[in-house]
């Protein structure tokens, strides 16, 4: 039995735990404010808010309910648009109305929920964070300008938000129904799920599997990673960063420890999926999905990360670059799952850059992505890891290019020659993400972009003469 609080009601259901939260909300509970748009997390029409107990508080974040297996709702507070209607319009709803930021209205509940999640978040809301919160909501009618204007109004309405307790602050102002104050206590009364029987495969955030195998999962009882504490958390241990497999992409982006290693991490994270999907998608999931274009895999590869696998009895460590054997084929044995990922954590981290180009800059799969980490040894390149996605059947470590670069000075000649090594090392194919020719050119450009960014003013590379 999966038990959770849906708006103001505690629900227990024997529905298959792999079925989607969206279907449960709409067709079992009749709450039709949450809409079905695409069932792959790419439109945001089904956005709901998920509250997770955190001591005596509840922290809220947005999620796309189409990709959320029912089991991941267990022990949580699921809020749909019906659950925030407090008799009067909230500041979010009022702003949408005042700016006519809705036309056909089909995407509107999703937009309202994304913005409400933003107002519930324990961070200052600015027009920029408000826009980021709706970056996963596709609206085909308004052209977004009225939505932008609404976000400005919302940000100013939330200017005095009490960051120590946003829920109470909103309830006190009549912006949120009072029942929200009882949720923490009510969640504490829900018992955790019993441990899963041996042999049952787990599911992480669901953001890949629920797209690929929705019909199958809808009939199956799967288990969640999320409940396993051992898979959560980012910590330092013995000079290494340890990232639990179930750490979400959002958690990755918010980690202060990781930001010390990767100062531009937040800007990379902004290029990956959308806020609600990042709130669900796990690091382990990105790796085991084994997409040749996985953003996190490409970043972790450049950090020369190791993957720690376990089958619950035995652990083994595999360098990430050796984990990917062939297209969608991993060096993982039956029953094994990723426990965590680790890489060297340093007070003097190497230079790092991540680049990604997709048809649409945000919420899109890359045509080509690439990452590099390198240390200078005097005037020459020392240790260097260069990776690329979308140019081979697996996320690729460009070992020969890295070797070529090692010991050379940073100059346009080095880069031009290195590009020739790159072109030998990759084997892109023409597909819906771009032609082979384009991917070859694009990787060259992204490779140059790494160096132009990391060594500003030091390269005499004139790109309009290439």
């Amino acid at each position, binding site marked *: 039995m999966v038990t959770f609080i849906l708006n103001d009601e505690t629900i227990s259901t024997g529905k298959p735990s792999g079925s989607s939260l969206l279907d449960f909300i*709409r067709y079992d509970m*009749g709450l*039709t404010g949450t*809409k*079905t*748009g*695409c*069932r*792959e997390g*790419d439109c945001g*029409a089904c956005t709901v808010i998920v509250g997770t107990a955190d001591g005596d508080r509840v922290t809220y974040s947005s999620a796309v309910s189409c990709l959320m297996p029912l089991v991941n709702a267990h022990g949580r507070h699921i809020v749909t*648009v*019906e659950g925030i209607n407090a008799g009067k*319009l909230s500041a979010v709803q009022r702003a*949408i*109305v005042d700016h*006519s930021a809705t*036309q*056909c*209205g*089909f*995407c*509107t*509940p999703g937009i*309202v929920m994304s913005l409400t999640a933003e107002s519930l978040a324990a961070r200052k809301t600015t027009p920029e964070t408000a*826009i980021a919160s*709706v*970056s996963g*909501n*596709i*609206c*085909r*009618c*308004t*052209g*977004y*300008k*009225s939505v*932008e204007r609404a976000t400005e109004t919302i940000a100013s309405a939330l200017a005095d938000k009490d960051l120590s307790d946003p829920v109470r602050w909103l309830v006190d102002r009549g912006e949120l129904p009072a029942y929200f104050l009882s949720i923490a206590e009510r969640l504490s009364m829900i018992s955790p799920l019993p441990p899963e029987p041996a042999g049952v495969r787990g599911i992480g955030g669901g953001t890949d599997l629920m797209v690929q195998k929705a*019909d199958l999962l*809808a009939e199956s009882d799967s288990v969640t990673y999320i409940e396993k504490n051992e898979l959560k958390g980012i910590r330092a241990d013995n000079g290494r960063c340890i990232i639990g497999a179930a750490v979400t992409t959002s958690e990755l982006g918010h980690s202060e420890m990781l930001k010390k290693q990767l100062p531009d991490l937040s800007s990379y994270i902004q290029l990956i999926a959308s806020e609600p999907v990042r709130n669900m998608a796990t690091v382990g999931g990105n790796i085991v999905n084994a997409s040749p274009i996985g953003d996190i895999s490409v970043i972790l590869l450049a950090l020369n990360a190791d993957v720690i696998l376990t089958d619950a009895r035995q652990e083994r460590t595999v360098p990430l670059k050796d984990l990917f054997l062939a297209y969608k084929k991993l060096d993982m044995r039956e029953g094994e799952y990723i426990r965590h990922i680790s890489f060297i954590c340093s007070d003097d981290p190497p230079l790092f850059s991540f680049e990604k*180009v997709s*048809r*649409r*800059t*945000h919420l899109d*799969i890359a*045509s080509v992505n690439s990452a590099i980490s390198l240390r200078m040894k005097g005037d020459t390149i020392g240790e260097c890891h260069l990776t690329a996605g979308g140019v081979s059947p697996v996320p690729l470590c460009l070992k020969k290019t890295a070797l070529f670069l090692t010991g050379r000075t940073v100059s346009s000649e080095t880069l031009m020659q290195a590009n020739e090594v790159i072109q030998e090392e990759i084997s892109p194919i023409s597909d*819906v993400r771009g032609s082979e*020719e384009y991917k070859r*050119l*694009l990787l060259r*450009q*992204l490779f*140059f*972009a790494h160096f*132009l960014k990391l060594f500003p003013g030091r390269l005499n590379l*004139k*790109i*309009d003469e290439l």
Partner: protein
Amino acid sequence: MNNPDIISHTTGRSQYLDDIPVLKNTLYGVIFGSPSTHGKITDLDLSAALVVPGVRRIFTHEDIPGKNDIGGIIPDETLFAVDEVHYRGQPVALVVADTEQAARKAVKLIKMAVSELEPVTDPRQAAAKGHFLIPSRTFRMGDVAAAWDACEHIFEGRADTGGQEHLYLETQGAYSYPSDNGCIRIHSSTQGPTLVQKVAARVLALPMNRVEVDVARLGGAFGGKEDQATFVAVMSALAASLMERPVKITLSRSDDIRMTGKRHPYSADYRIGLTGDYRIVAYQLVMYQNGGAAADLSSAIMERTLFHSTNAYFIPNTEVAVHSCRTNLPPNTAFRGFGAPQGMFMIEAAIARAASELKIPARVIQQANFLKDNDMFQYGQVAMDVNIGKCFTALNKEFEIDKIEKEIAEFNSRRTIYRKGMALMPVCFGISFTNTSMNHARALVHIYQDGSIGISTGAVEMGQGVNARLARVATGAFSVAPERIRIETTNTTRVANTSPTAASTGADLNGNAMLIAADRLTGRLKDMASQLLNCAPREVSLQEERVLVNGEQTELTWEKLVREAFLMRVALSEIGHYATPVIYFDKTREKGHPFIYHVYGTAVITVLLDCLRGRYSIEKVLLVHDFGNSHNPDIDMGQVEGGIVQGIGWMTMEEVAFSKDGRMLTDSLSTYKVPDIYSAPAVLECRALGTEGPKFALMKSKAIGEPPFMYGIGAFFALQNAIKAFNPAWTPDFDAPLTPEKVLMRLYDRNNQ
């Protein structure tokens, strides 16, 4: 006044098709679409599908009691394929089951054997084989052949535009159930309730009065639910009728993208001739319209392409032809602009090519050729109240185009990794259905005895705000509080024989019909008031819920007046009928006066291009638009902003891709990308031209749905200019959309050196 639905939209209470509470015993339908692009069906094996638990019945063409024909204009399209399939995804069967899940499972078990035939997806190839959907048409004015001699410069070349998926957020759907006496009630997500009614009647062999179609609202449509909502609605009606149970069909996103048509891709050969002072004196254009496997609305779309092929320019000698080509793709269909954007792109491409060769900004040519009063359109209508020049002048005054150009040149001279580009996009768009006989509407208005008012028209609310416009006009016409007005669902039993809500005409046609009804009702009420107040009817007026006599307030309120009228047996219901005057068109001569008025505007678009990565953003869209006397500025501005972003999407990231054998490669939102909030122009400023407005526009407020879409075309040419600033050796080509891939390839295209 806002959209009357706005509160229910933001609180999630607005009901769309899939939100209608289902009746007990409802069954669910999933369509089996052809797995082959083109071939003869040799076997259809349903046995495995039929034994899936929960499956009740599988329908094919053999189950149709009436005609297996759903063609809207031309009877060339089946509901279910018979012997041959002509595109991948073409409906072959409908599985009806207790749950959608069971039906979906069964669909996967249907086996269809096909003897493959050669697929054709390219319109030029289709034309070479003589595969046309309808006879080709040509518009002519002056004498092109003779005019070339007078030209100082002649340029010719090719231009292409891609398709565009509507991506209405609500997919196609319908919910039908049998009612008394063999009647059927259909809830359909359609822009054309009468079309659904007519085709359902044809397929079910019922008279139209036995088929009721009701539409509350659509979750977006953009033309995609004008003709293509019909097959889903008719299938649900067929199953409901034959099984005598409620049947619902909601297409999954991938089924919707694979099975339904898109904006027509066009391929064209242009030839443009200019004088030494850049006046275009001759223009020749041959266009190949990719119509897909059936005619759908292609003939009407072809016509609008012809009408708008010279955009906002006067060209004395023209010859423009369109061939509507039959290919093995889903039947392409209406999409905001309805063929006009494709025609306008071609002339803008020809101008851009000329400008590039002559090494002048395109706007020099554009400005030199703007249409003026008393110029003749190539279809014989004399242009009146032309506002294109005024829009440009106002734009230039407001935003100083010279200054923008100078800033861009200065920016580009710094030779960073970025370049900027600018383009001017004028728009002239004709209002009226080009098929004159469709330009009529009716409104049924009830004043209830408590003073509240219910209004039914043929207009379908799909987010464009027609209900807000109708409500506002009604509020004014009856001089009552907005709360008294209710715009009812669109229902074929209340308002019959309607044209679809399309061609930007919804408010004009239905609003004018409503005003006629309102005028008769208020006339009778004023008569009533004059009897009650002992004065002449002409002395009576209604104002803010009160009756005035010679401008003086009386004790008689709206509510009291209505009640008295009811007791005195005065008719409080009225049907208004409106048919657009003046317009006509003679297809034998291809001349006439097809449009009641034109909408004008001019935009400047600037882009910022990252030449290292081939990524770009739209910096500014600045425009002056001729709204007439805008009656609902919020709604009009919403249409401008939404239309522009959709137009930019069509020109930049939105790419409908098929494999050579006709398989849809972009059948999901992860592969077909539409603009997100970060893709919207950073700055979008729109000024109203400030004109009185044409008398046949509703309240002199011009139609707004489609025209702004075409400003987005400017994004293509602005991007081209930015590429050119980086790679001067590049010879511009015209193959829209200009995706990041195409941009990067052109930035580093060194073939011409």
